[in-house]
């Protein structure tokens, strides 16, 4: 069984550690906030200038002046801080955010990531993604292993224009959790019921399969 969006979020959340400052991209990454393991606490950074992002507001709390990077209305937790965009990206660019979760179109064995531009299609912009991938010491990419035609998104060389070069070390797909090392994907875990063969067949980039590949449990 491929992982559901929720399971992907849940699996990534297991990488969180107590005291992590975390930036979650839009889409599945946002769901990670719902699966913070018991006994640890993390603080969310939103690149529009907020550290300590809270839950969505109630109708009473709703405030047009308090939004996240996805332009959604949010709240702040106790101990939050708010700052300008240049201070926010100083924080990001300076490597102070511990953990970043982002989506992508493609990743490759060099740790390159393509996530913002498909030639010929309407280009909406990279937002803060290029800053985030160039800066975070610790990034996990969440993506489907292959596109809807079955073409692998884990490549030897990204075909699409890059968002960042040599910056990705960890990838979670709907089929597997992989790490990137010395020019190859290392298969670390597989989704429940997904065979190593299926993962091999859907991974275009160089893949190293250890003797034992544990199955994820949920």
């Amino acid at each position, binding site marked *: 069984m491929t992982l559901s969006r929720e399971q992907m979020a849940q699996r990534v959340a297991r990488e969180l550690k107590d005291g992590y400052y975390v930036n979650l991209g839009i889409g599945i990454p946002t769901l990670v906030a719902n699966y913070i393991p018991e006994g640890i606490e993390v603080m969310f950074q939103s690149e529009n200038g907020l550290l300590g992002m809270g839950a969505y507001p109630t109708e009473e709390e*709703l405030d047009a002046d308090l939004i996240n990077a996805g*332009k959604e209305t949010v709240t702040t937790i106790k101990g939050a801080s708010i700052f300008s965009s240049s201070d926010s990206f100083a924080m990001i660019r300076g490597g102070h955010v511990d953990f970043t979760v982002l989506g992508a179109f493609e990743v490759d064995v060099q740790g390159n990531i393509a996530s913002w531009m498909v030639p010929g299609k309407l280009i*909406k912009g990279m937002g803060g993604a*290029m800053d985030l991938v160039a800066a975070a010491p610790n990034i996990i990419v969440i993506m489907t292993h292959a596109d809807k035609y079955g073409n692998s998104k884990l490549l030897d060389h990204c075909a699409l224009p890059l968002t960042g070069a040599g910056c990705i070390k960890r990838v979670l797909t709907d089929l597997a959790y992989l790490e990137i090392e010395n020019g190859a994907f290392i298969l670390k875990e597989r989704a429940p019921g997904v065979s190593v063969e299926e993962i091999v067949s859907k991974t275009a980039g160089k893949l190293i399969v250890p003797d034992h590949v544990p199955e994820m449990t949920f």
Partner: protein
Amino acid sequence: MSGFDKVVHSYDEAMQGLTDGMTIVAGGFGICGIPENLINQIKKMGVKGLTIASNNCGVDGFGLGVLLEDKQIKTMIASYVGENKLFEQQMMSGELEVILTPQGTLAEKMRAAGAGIPAFYTATGYGTPIAEGKEVREFNGRHYVLEEAIKADFAIVKAWKADRYGNAIYRHTAMNFNPMAATAGKITVMEVEEIVEPGELDPTQVHTPGIYVDRLIQGTFEKRIERRTVRSA
């Protein structure tokens, strides 16, 4: 002190001197913390051929989006522009030039302009189309791209409260690009929800010192919400 009183009493006065072909930096993220009324004034003035640097370009019918209606924008410098049908049309047809710029780089380019730093190095964009034609240099084994400051003829910003001298504070995340934009204009125009007397703001809590503000006007704001997300109480 008369020389430090930045208050003007009409939007005509606030944007006086803006002419065709000028460059404008604007505060705001999405449509949060945008200088709504200053943008509407630019629409009213009908100036054309503008270059605008702002993280986004508003939405259809609100924010910087309204300047597309009469094709007032020639070049848009932004990090994300996906919320706007008119924008797409004009970009596709080639009427509108778009210079996509990573969000952090855009913020830093505005800060640099105000801070007298003509250029800086950043890892952002190395190895991507953004770095094409730009100098790349290695420091301590990493590659960095040289990015230049964005200086503008006018800066338009929105703050919460300011005193008559232009010392301003922002509310919540409506701060965003406004503090840097405020420093990057030859003429900086600020609109606020409330003007207070000098001495009412704690000096250490001022976000934008009045030295950056040339004209200050009190306005009323619609504050439209782009993505209204709520939970039940």
